[in-house]
């Protein structure tokens, strides 16, 4: 078993609607897998099932050889799976640093005694955490690293997206699920974001990534392998070139006959 994440026959139903239909997927170590497909094809549903937000009706999810089917989101997070959301789910009223620390939850000491009485120890922990956060943010953008104490609400769209990716990364996950990071971005911002993703790739080579994306430039540049969903089913798998040339894919995506 070389896969870091395996889904076997993963099925999610909402009443009579089968949103995800017996999906099989193997994510290999260090790879970036692109997940594409028209709106409503089940991509986000797949992420929600993987991260424990939806309970699969059938099938299995295995992370690093451990069966995590139907596990809580917390257990899946502890197993090293982190994600971002298509519509940003940052805490806008909190600072950038606070948001990152929410993602670093499992590395922080939450004991009552440590937090309420051992204030020097807590201050040391905060100092170390700030260094960690600054270093991670600097991978994306040096100015952003200098704005850690500002509220996220004061940031631009692309910086918010970066903070969200950093929130997912700071806990040191083994698997990162990115749900359409370019959503709501301008053309230029999408370019910047692509550079960011390549930078992550370079700095954290051991990370395995699944990337949902509608921007085909991004898919082409960043991913090694793609999977296409339509109506909850996998219709094609392969390199971007193979997939893009496929007649069935073109039909599903572009409505071509």
């Amino acid at each position: 078993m070389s896969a870091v994440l395996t889904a076997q026959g993963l099925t999610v139903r909402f009443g009579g609607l089968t949103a995800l239909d017996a999906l099989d997927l193997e994510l290999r170590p260090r790879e970036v897998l692109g997940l594409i497909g028209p709106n409503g094809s089940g991509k986000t549903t797949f992420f929600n099932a993987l991260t424990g937000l939806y309970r699969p009706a059938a099938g299995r999810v295995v992370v690093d050889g451990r069966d995590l089917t139907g596990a809580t989101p917390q257990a899946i997070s502890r197993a090293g799976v982190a994600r971002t959301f298509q519509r940003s789910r940052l805490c806008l009223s909190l600072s950038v640093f606070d948001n990152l620390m929410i993602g670093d939850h499992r590395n922080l000491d939450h004991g009552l005694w440590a937090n309420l009485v051992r204030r020097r120890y807590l201050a040391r922990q905060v100092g170390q955490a700030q260094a960690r956060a600054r270093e991670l943010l600097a991978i994306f953008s040096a100015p952003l690293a200098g704005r850690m104490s500002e509220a996220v609400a004061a940031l631009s769209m692309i910086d918010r997206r970066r903070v969200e990716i950093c929130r997912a990364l700071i806990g040191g996950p083994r698997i990162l699920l990115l749900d359409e990071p370019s959503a709501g971005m301008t053309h230029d911002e999408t370019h910047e974001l692509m550079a960011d993703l390549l930078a992550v790739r370079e700095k954290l080579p051991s990370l395995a990534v699944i990337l949902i994306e509608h921007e085909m430039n991004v898919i082409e540049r960043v991913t090694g392998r793609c999977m296409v969903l339509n109506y909850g089913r996998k219709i094609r798998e392969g390199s971007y070139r193979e997939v893009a040339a496929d007649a069935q894919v073109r039909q599903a995506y572009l409505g071509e006959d």
Partner: protein
Amino acid sequence: MSATPGRSSLPVAVAGVAACAAACWAFLEAESQWVVAALAAGVLAALPVLDRTGLRARFDAAVHARRALAPALVVTAAFALALVLRDSHFALLMLASVALYVTVCLGLTLQFGFAGIANFAGAAFFGIGCYSAAILAANTALPHLLAVLAGGLAAAAVGSVLILPILRTRGHYAALVTIAFGILFRTFLEVNDVLGGPQGLKVPGMRILGWSFNDPPPLPGGVEASFYLNYVIVAVALAAGAFVLVKRIESSWIGLSFDAVRLDETAAAVCGIDIARWKILAFVLGNFLAGTAGAVYAMMSGFIAPNSFTFGDSLILVSIVILGGVGNPLGVIPAALLLLILPEKLQAIQEYRFLIYAVLVILILLYRPQGLLPRRLREYSAPGPRP
């Protein structure tokens, strides 16, 4: 952002606290209804002026810059006020009540302001503390300090049962669970003969280590003072302890986890945060504070009855939190002063106090949802990440 760094912050903070204390003194000492009404109108008119001129923001920043000193400053002001008003039973009773209400509202701040659990049964948890302390003080030889602690623990214990249905519901439904509990609690008191039924219970005065609270305090130089001064000391100490606790929670990883749970449960869960753990902690700690305050209140007033723990009383507590600024522990203090003292002094409006609270809450939510003192970004105990 912070308008007054360094040296000028201390005098600004002192002047601000002193001005608030002076306003309280004027309210408590005012005899005629007209004077009280004029004072209230003056305070009301002063609020937008303080905002416009930036004085309120300066005060806010100064208190923040001196946050290590601020609790001591407020406590000093409270004691100074109590000493000035030492021979007035009424004024001291009001001050002690305000301090106890502040304690309860700090508990609500943990629950509602931090962890996002709307608790509309604050008066019920306060009442659990009252009744526990009343029964323990009247029927056992338990030292009263422990009886106060027991009042807090009893409220916390009942809260840890009530949290179960709250965890299974979200948002408005969780609030409805607390409303139902509050009403249930009062009905339970009224039909329960052991607890005195609707007539209520008499409660012995507090005694700690031979210090009898219902005797005039032995002040140096033979200065005479109302026995309520004893209760002011204990109530203010309790409120100060609660304040330090809540501030420490806010500026730690625990406060951050509370915020994460309040702001987005889904994102928090995906980040590995155990929602139930933090909601339980906030709810239990908050109710503990309410219970301890209730226990002191019972011994201070000497008599408790179900009528003091109605849904309306819970609403007053919630309005104090909203008026003060949801999630800002400091805001609770001026809000409690305003909402408790004003109706007591202004007999004309007492009949309509609930109506006025309701209108006030609506007005605040419409025009000043952040409250008197808006919440600031968290700063941890470490030097901030500001470059």
